[in-house]
């Protein structure tokens, strides 16, 4: 039905009318990339179209030699028989959803998005369309995000508790997006320096460079040998958990900031001392609200186990399908963990 605009292919989601791929997982001739997370932005394609607001991050991910065309928000440009534009999706700095006009209709591919406020990026902008492709990372009604104010209070109370117990507080979170959002949110309540894992340093500097106000930071690697981190807040990517890098913090208390921390079983399974519910994806009310806001006739669901969302949308009067129903084959193995 909509296969002339969107067709799943092994390389990624393909647009036959415009002859380009959206967020391809393998090298292609023309790639349109929604945002800079590793499960969307892959190096190796001949040409990239991206939103200018995320240009620096894309350069970081795609390499110095990549040919990247940057576009302002809402700027129209032509690829094949289609007219394209990028619109903010509120996921991370520069994250976009893509509007594709062609074959007499308008499709919007959302990439990843959220509706909650985030001081590090432009808020989500609903784009009216006929066909809407939505993610569904957190596609069940048990996922409703708590207000950020409360999460910030919880994190600060935890750091305070660690200070009293004289142990470091190591907060694991994704290096791109989540770390900067937390540093910006914490800056409204405190001005204490946060110590960063090496994987976060350049990304934090890029955010700072475009004017995002965050807490002062210091590189863990720059600190003196044998420095005592007791009572300090340290941020690191989840991959650092259990690595030799952690040894310098001794008996640290560990926390993880992620939407998955909503469920007690997931919290306990990961073995972190504390779970903080913070996500850069839409929660269930956010997903439903967005489908309504864009007024699409047909909704295609991708990411995760979208069955519940599809069925619920159908029962509430929407034409909803799995993206797979368009035919073709899509790589299944997208990590739904990245940037959650």
């Amino acid at each position, binding site marked *: 039905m909509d296969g002339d605009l969107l067709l799943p292919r092994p390389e990624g989601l393909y647009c036959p009318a415009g002859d380009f791929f959206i967020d391809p997982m393998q090298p292609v001739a023309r790639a349109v990339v929604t945002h800079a997370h590793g499960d969307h932005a892959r190096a190796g394609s001949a040409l990239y179209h991206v939103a200018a607001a995320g240009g620096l991050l894309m350069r970081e991910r795609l390499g110095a030699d990549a040919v990247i065309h940057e576009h302002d928000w809402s700027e129209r440009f032509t690829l094949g028989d289609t007219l394209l534009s990028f619109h903010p999706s509120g996921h991370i700095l520069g994250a976009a959803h893509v509007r594709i006009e062609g074959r007499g209709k308008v499709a919007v591919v959302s990439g990843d998005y959220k509706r909650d406020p985030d001081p590090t990026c432009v808020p989500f902008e609903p784009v009216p369309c006929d066909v809407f492709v939505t993610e569904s990372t957190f596609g*069940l*009604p*048990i*996922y*409703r995000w708590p*207000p950020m104010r*409360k999460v910030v209070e919880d994190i600060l109370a935890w750091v305070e508790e660690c200070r009293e117990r004289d142990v470091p507080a190591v907060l694991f979170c994704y290096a791109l997006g989540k770390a900067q959002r937390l540093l910006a949110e914490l800056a409204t309540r405190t001005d204490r320096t946060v110590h960063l894992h090496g994987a976060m340093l350049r990304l934090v500097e890029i955010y700072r460079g475009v004017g995002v106000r965050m807490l002062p930071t210091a590189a863990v690697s720059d600190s003196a040998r044998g420095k005592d981190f007791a009572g300090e807040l340290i941020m690191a990517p989840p991959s650092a958990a259990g690595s030799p890098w952690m040894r310098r913090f001794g008996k640290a208390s560990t926390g993880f900031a992620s939407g998955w921390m*909503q*469920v*007690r*079983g*997931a919290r*306990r*399974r990961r*073995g972190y*001392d*504390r779970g903080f519910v913070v996500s850069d994806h839409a929660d269930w009310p956010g997903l439903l609200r967005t489908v309504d806001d864009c007024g699409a006739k047909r909704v295609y669901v991708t990411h995760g186990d979208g*069955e*519940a969302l599809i*069925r*619920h949308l159908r*029962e509430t009067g929407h034409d909803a399908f799995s993206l797979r129903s368009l035919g073709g084959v899509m790589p*299944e193995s997208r990590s739904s963990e990245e940037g959650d």
Partner: protein
Amino acid sequence: MRRFAALFEALDRTSSTSAKRDAMAVYFAEAPAADAAWAVYVLGGGKLKRTATSTELRLALAAGTGYADWLIDDSYQHVGDLAETIALMLPGVEDGGEDVPLHVWMEARLPSLGCLEPAERIELLREWWRPLPREQVFLVNKLLTGSLRVGVSHRLVVQALAQWSNLPTDLIAHRLSGTWKPAADAFAALAGPERGDEHAGERPYPFFLASPLEQDVASLGSVGDWLVEWKWDGIRAQLMRRAGGVLLWSRGEERLDGRFPEIELAAQELPDGCVLDGEILAWTLDEDHPLPFAALQKRIGKLKPGPKLLTDTPVRLMTYDLLEMAGQDLRERPLAERRATLAALVEGRGPTLMVSPAVDAPGWHALATIRGQSRERRTEGLMLKRLDSPYRVGRKRGDWWKWKVDPYTIDAVLLYAQPGHGRRSGLFTDYTFGVWEGDALVPVAKAYSGLDDSEIGQLDRWIRAHTIERFGPVRSVEPTHVFELAFEAIQASGRHKAGVAVRFPRILRWRTDLAIRDADKLDDLRRLASG
């Protein structure tokens, strides 16, 4: 309830036992005694009589949210816990909310549901949930369904009470044993000064529990320092002959009165003021070994066994320790002395009360050979007890060891999977395995444990990608993977499709080196069951 919710969160958050103990001790010191009493009860694993069904909880949730039943089910499958699913799906209140004391929930509110019609019950549940913050919705549901797991052992609760009251842990353990009734004065009495008559009344002594022998048996020193007995496969029980009556307590400290009338009758012959520790076994007169555990199971469920059951499946108490004699607490006396007194007391009183015979062997090597006969004797292996040891409280390593016989093992094929609960919710961790009967694979065992986290993750992804069919939460998968399973016993069973039932099955290894045609045959299992 807010204070208890905070305690629960503190306990749930940490894996450090000392932090847990401190948190409980602080709570006991600060909470009103009426609430603290219920906290002791709940933390120790106590439950209320259930007054609402899961279906009623789901109906109340559906009414409270307007969500379709299937969406509630999908969410439940994902979360793996109904109480939590409800807490996550209801709107909930942001800050503050209502704060009804724990003892009011436990004594008045939750029990009151039992007298209502289902429709009223659902209405009342919704009314209760409405003003509560999320964590209290969760706890109320958990208390209501009796499924609260706090991750503290009974022993740790005892230690926290000892820390709060500044009394020895063994005394606290004894004061809590039996049917401890949670109430403000009972809580205060836990901390009262030690009296001379602590052991009087209906309270059982805390059981001494053996630890599994993991080291080389020869490292235990001379075999002559040890009493060796068979490890009986029955129900651990404490028989109390006091104040003219007979009381029988299970190891879970539940009264077994009336279930085993032949034991109570035989115990009437014992002198007043004695307490015996032993094992209830199903055992017919003309046999020289007990009936399988499955026979005993028929008796466990029966509050008042009928004449036919009493004739077909009579029981005995195999005693092995004497904790009290003539009203005197003997637990500090050496085992050798307690056993000698026990033998003098019990032997010759007829078959219903027996003394567990000592297994004699000149050395550990000979003993290992004897242990090889455990199955023929319908026992689980051997018990090793240090002859000069006192009767201790709880599981203390060093004086009592269980030296179990090696389990049976089979190679079986993964056929079905369903999501687990708690820490494993949302992951496929409950597996059903089958073996060959002709060209078909027949399910023979369910197992939940034995794989490490990375294997669980790997298998979970594989199951999602290779599902053939779904039956509610259960998925059938392409027969591909072979696992080595261990189990303790196997019996013929009319209730199981395969005709055999295995006891305590668990996964030993993922046999990636085997193909499905290498799995075992049902005939081999049947032979084991009949042997």
